[in-house]
């Protein structure tokens, strides 16, 4: 085994502490800003910890009183949930049959490769026709229209994840069920899908994270509270004339909370999902 000197151990712990600080400091500061009184944030020298924690901004943003900052924020929160939900369900409905088909019939795999290759396309290469198309269909500034556009990002990714998931389920199990007289769809419903449930869940979470994070299309295709998503609402706050930086920070904390919780709870599945692409190529 490796020989470990005391100096090496000290060095390892020092590096670990440095890494922890690098990761945590910006996130901690976002939270501190959200609970610091405005005067503390404007103080020189800067006050790093509030004299009295002030959670009123959370209340302010989550209130639904007419024409308040809260009304705009909660509307965008609802829009983000709706768009992410619709796009994720639609992506899975497309991805599960397609992923299974490619997994069991490798000869059509090239069609999935083509779908995945669209990842290289910058969204700006599709944006103008999508804008004109949505405008023609009356779906600009509409959560449904935005969810359809999000399929450009979500569907290839979830199909690829589902395909790797089905690859791990031996086809002999399906064959056995079919010999026992089960039809194809019965086999898939009773045997394959329950076995694939963890992969479906992982794909769904990835899809939700991607949709929650999306900014470019939402910026282009939404214009007011009826469809603006959280990312656009936060960019508005950050770029606007808001004098209270704590309020921007609070919006950031609230928007980050769902994906960060998903990330922490699903660590293991997320890491294996991320690295399966990296390791297998």
């Amino acid at each position: 085994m490796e020989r470990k000197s005391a100096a090496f151990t000290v060095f390892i712990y020092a590096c670990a502490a440095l890494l922890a600080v690098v990761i945590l400091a910006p996130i901690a500061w976002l939270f501190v800003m959200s609970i610091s009184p405005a005067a503390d944030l404007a103080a020189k020298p800067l006050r790093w910890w509030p004299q009295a924690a002030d959670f009123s901004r959370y209340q302010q943003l989550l209130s639904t009183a007419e024409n308040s900052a809260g009304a705009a924020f909660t509307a965008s929160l609802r829009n983000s949930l709706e768009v992410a939900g619709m796009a994720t369900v639609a992506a899975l409905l497309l991805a599960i049959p397609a992923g299974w088909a490619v997994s069991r019939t490798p000869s059509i795999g090239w069609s999935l490769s083509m779908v995945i290759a669209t990842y290289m396309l910058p969204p700006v290469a599709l944006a103008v026709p999508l804008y004109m198309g949505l405008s023609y269909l009356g779906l600009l500034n509409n959560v449904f229209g935005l969810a359809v556009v999000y399929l450009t990002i979500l569907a290839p990714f979830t199909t690829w994840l589902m395909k790797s998931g089905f690859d791990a389920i031996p086809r002999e199990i399906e064959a056995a069920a079919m010999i026992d007289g089960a039809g194809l769809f019965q086999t898939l419903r009773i045997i394959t899908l329950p076995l694939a449930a963890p992969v479906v869940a992982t794909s769904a979470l990835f899809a939700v994270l991607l949709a929650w994070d999306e900014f470019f299309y939402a910026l282009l295709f939404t214009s007011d509270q009826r469809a603006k998503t959280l990312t656009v609402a936060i960019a508005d706050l950050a770029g606007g004339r808001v004098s209270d930086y704590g309020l921007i920070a609070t919006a950031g904390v609230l928007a980050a909370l769902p994906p960060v919780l998903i990330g922490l709870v699903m660590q293991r599945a997320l890491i294996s999902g991320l690295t399966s692409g990296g390791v297998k190529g």
Partner: protein
Amino acid sequence: MSGTWMTTRAWLLMLPLLMVMVAVIGWPLVDTVGLSFTDAKLVGTAGNFVGIDNYTKMLSSSNFSRTLVTTTWFAVASVAIEMVIGVLAALLLNQEFRGRTFLRALMILPWALPTVVNATLWRLIYNPEYGALNGALTQLHLIDAYRSWLGEPGTALAALIIADCWKNFPLVALIALAALQAVPRDITAASLVDGAGPFARFRFVILPYLAGPLMVALVLRTIEAFKVFDIIWVMTRGGPANSTRTLSILVYQEAFSFQRAGSGASLALIVTLLVTVLALAYAALVKKTAGSAT
């Protein structure tokens, strides 16, 4: 069951996905190509055919060449820093020490933080009047007066690169860590017996295991960095004095701010072509690395 029926059935199951992909990706892409040969505006008339005018105009403009340099600089610098820090962090996390599991869980945080929230957070940190960076540096007596990190052309791009690296190096670290854990223990032990120093060990024993996964991470990160829009739009909108304007920002301005759909489309396709060439070059490299590593 016959092979042709299996194949037909597979195509039927692929069909919904392929139809949607044609509608939301295939058709828009073809339409972009068509638009790029016209002088169409974003709203109103369909525009007239102008041949390759848009392309020659865009490629010869000084805006394009300057933006290409900015984009390349952003992509190369941020990806290089992310790879180096990511691998170092992975080597650290592969050691045994107390709190390792906790530290590994922390790595998820920057990755899970939405890009726009990350950009907003760093924009607040760099704030010229109240920002934490100014506060910290003055309190440590490293600078005398508050500076406008995102407001000066000399520092804005570097400030953006730091913000981008902070969010993305943990992903590289997690991918590298997974690869490191696949290195068999007896091989590293054998290299110790053979008297390999830490650097020789890294170069000849560990790196071959890392090369494949790291190449994939490198490809994906480079493509994303080349397409970058969100973080720059939220932090600087391409300013000050266009010093942080990347290709995607330029396309956005051309097609949506100035409503010139035709020339915007030609620019978007030039970007697409650049990314494709980059990806193909990398793909060849990945194949080579994968071949030599095993």
